[in-house]
């Protein structure tokens, strides 16, 4: 069983074809990095996977459930896919606790509280529940975003250039920490970046993307030897 299986995916913005006939497979618990220059279709691919964008053609299967094909499309809120954004996308009107709890609706309050605490411990932000996003550093904000996504136990996590706004001194540690968290939670992840170094540090394998297609998939070790 694979965490993600994309077959023959094609996406266009108006008349411009951004992704053409793309195939990609991610195994359970695997972290794959998608490496490519800006404008090669990386972000579009993430939007198509998460359901924010309707593909023209092809199918997307997440944990053996078909979520998108030419006939049907499951709406984003029903896919259970987590996403981490370049600008973190924290809700500025909610404090850390309520940001992390945002996706945990319809559960008893005590369960929500427990889950949020677990998550904050996981990303080492205990004690900052009452802070608002603007009172946190970039790295802390990114940790909140991770906690918020993982709280819902997503079947797949998408990361869109998550470290590009973080200072280089903090970045190394954050990359290591988050990789460790994902491995510990056994969450499969697709990580998009234009930085080869980040990809090598974070992912198990690296796929190079060019003009809307995957060109090359290698394990991280192989790439570093190139």
């Amino acid at each position, binding site marked *: 069983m694979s965490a993600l299986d994309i077959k023959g995916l094609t996406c266009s913005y108006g008349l411009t074809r951004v992704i053409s006939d793309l195939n990609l497979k991610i195994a359970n618990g695997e972290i794959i990095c998608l490496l490519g220059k800006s404008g090669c279709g990386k972000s579009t691919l993430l939007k198509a996977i*998460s359901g924010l964008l309707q593909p023209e053609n092809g199918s997307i299967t997440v944990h053996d459930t078909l979520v998108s094909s030419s006939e049907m499309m499951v709406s984003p*809120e029903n896919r259970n896919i*987590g*996403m981490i954004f370049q600008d973190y*996308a924290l*809700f500025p*009107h*909610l404090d850390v606790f309520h940001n992390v709890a*945002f996706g945990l609706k319809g559960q008893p309050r005590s369960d929500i509280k427990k889950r949020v605490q677990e998550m904050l411990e996981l990303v080492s932000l205990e004690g900052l529940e009452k802070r608002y996003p603007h009172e946190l550093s970039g790295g802390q904000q990114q940790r909140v975003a991770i906690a*918020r996504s993982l709280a819902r136990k997503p079947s797949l996590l998408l990361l869109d250039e998550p470290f590009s706004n973080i200072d280089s001194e903090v970045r190394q540690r954050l990359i290591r920490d988050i990789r460790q968290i994902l491995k510990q939670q056994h969450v499969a992840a697709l990580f998009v970046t234009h930085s080869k170094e980040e990809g090598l540090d974070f992912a198990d394998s690296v796929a190079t993307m060019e003009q809307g297609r995957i060109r090359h998939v290698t394990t991280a070790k192989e790439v570093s030897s190139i």
Partner: protein
Amino acid sequence: MKHNLPYAWRVGSWLLALLLFLPVIALIVEAFAPSGDIFNHLWRTVLGNYIANSALLVAGVGVLGTVLSVPAAWIMARTDIPGRKVLQWLLILPLAMPAYVIAYIYTDLLEFSGPIQGLLRHVMGWESAADYSFPEIRSLPGAVIVLSLVLYPYQYLLVRTAFLEQSQTQAMASRLLGCTPLQSFLRVAIPMARPAIITGLALMGMETLADFATVSYFAVPTMTTAVYDTWLGYGSLSAAARLSALMLLAVVLLISMEKYSRRRQSLFQRDSGYDKALLIKLSGSKKFLALIWCWMLVVFGFVLPAFMLLKYLLSFYKVSSISDLLVDGTNSLIVAGSTALAAAAAAILFGFYQRFQPGMVSRIPGRLISTGYALPGTVLAIAVLIPLSLADTGINELLIALGQKPVGLVFSGSIFAVVLAMVIRFSAIAVGSVEASLERISPSLDMASRTLGCTIPGMVRRVHLPLMRKGILTGLLLVFVEAMKELPAVLLLRPFNFETLATSVFQYVSDEKLEYAAPAAIALVVAGLVPLIVMNWSMDNSMGSNSPEPSPQQTKQQEAGHFECA
């Protein structure tokens, strides 16, 4: 860069600012002066009722205006509704409609002898008013509906901008965290737009508080009509000043609310790219509902009244007096033209003072007269009357003492008073526009021209003024249009038998024969469309390109925001 500005320039700026601010000070002083029995009489009898009506009106318009505008703003900012480009513009058109014109038209349509009730009687077989009940439009709720229909665009513009500025990733994040589009709207978009919503509430509240014509026509007594009656009816300036000071208090309250909400706004704004592909795709009943909602606002706020005005024009053009229209139109042009020129001149004076002597002190004159924008027309009229009638009395007494013939009311009884009041009220627009265009001129140009041997006046003439032309023209145009439309201040201050387009249309409305004044009313609506076109142009610029034109941009804020006040 600091320049040695001619001394006269600095003194001139301060003197002009104080002159323009003097009426407000006079109003407050006068309000504390003993006023005789009239105010006490009002206080004991009807004033409570007036205050309650004003408060209910402001609250009612706040609620209804928000309920109408926020969903429309969200639909425009976040969905792929058909005709979005045109609709987002059509939705601001009601701003061009004078509320009293709409009030008249809906009364005409909905009253007992009107077509709606006539049709109902015909279809249902009712004979007289006793057979059925029909809500009375000439009432407080009626005024709430009419004012909401023309004021909602303020709230719509502000909230739509807020929704557009909200990072789309936050909306995406909320969807991925399990929200349906509706839940995302309620839990993320609305709370994040809260500062804009509160600003919109304050604006609609200020406009509602200032409204004179609609409540007067609907015979709903409010603070505004009380000021008007106290002065024109009882002739008591001090009682009118006290009532005005009470209104001033309410305005200060509304402005503080707006300031308070803006205090936290910076936290809420984080701009990122706008991706059309992420617009919510509407289909089926949702698309239908969204279309109905937006078109309902456009039709009832603009299309239907405009259609009725054209109908009046076609059926009654023979009896409408063209010569009256020309006289009134000329008066409007004179008053509005002088106001625009004076306001622009003041704005330029203050603008350069601020540029060449940067610092806290030089900012004050411009800020000071920008407060005028917040004053309701009636309050301002009373404020202007106080120093002007003092000046008139002084001049005449002096002339008599010198053995000359008195000259009469040269200030308070002439169009000088009208123009002064409107300069105070609308300078803020010109100041905003001029400041924005000055800010765009790089300080290095100043240094370049000075090192090339320009004097300050030479530099202003050869470098700054040519570069500021567009901003100055925009300011002139917008002040001109606002002055054309101004009603209550003109009604209170105009010389005997002096009519502008606005007062004439209002007179016809009061006399229940707007049909005869259709050409003048249409002229007012067309004039009101001008700032909207400027605004729309600036909105297009600010959305698409990387280098928006700040002068109309500022204009948008002015028009939608009246922000610069206070």
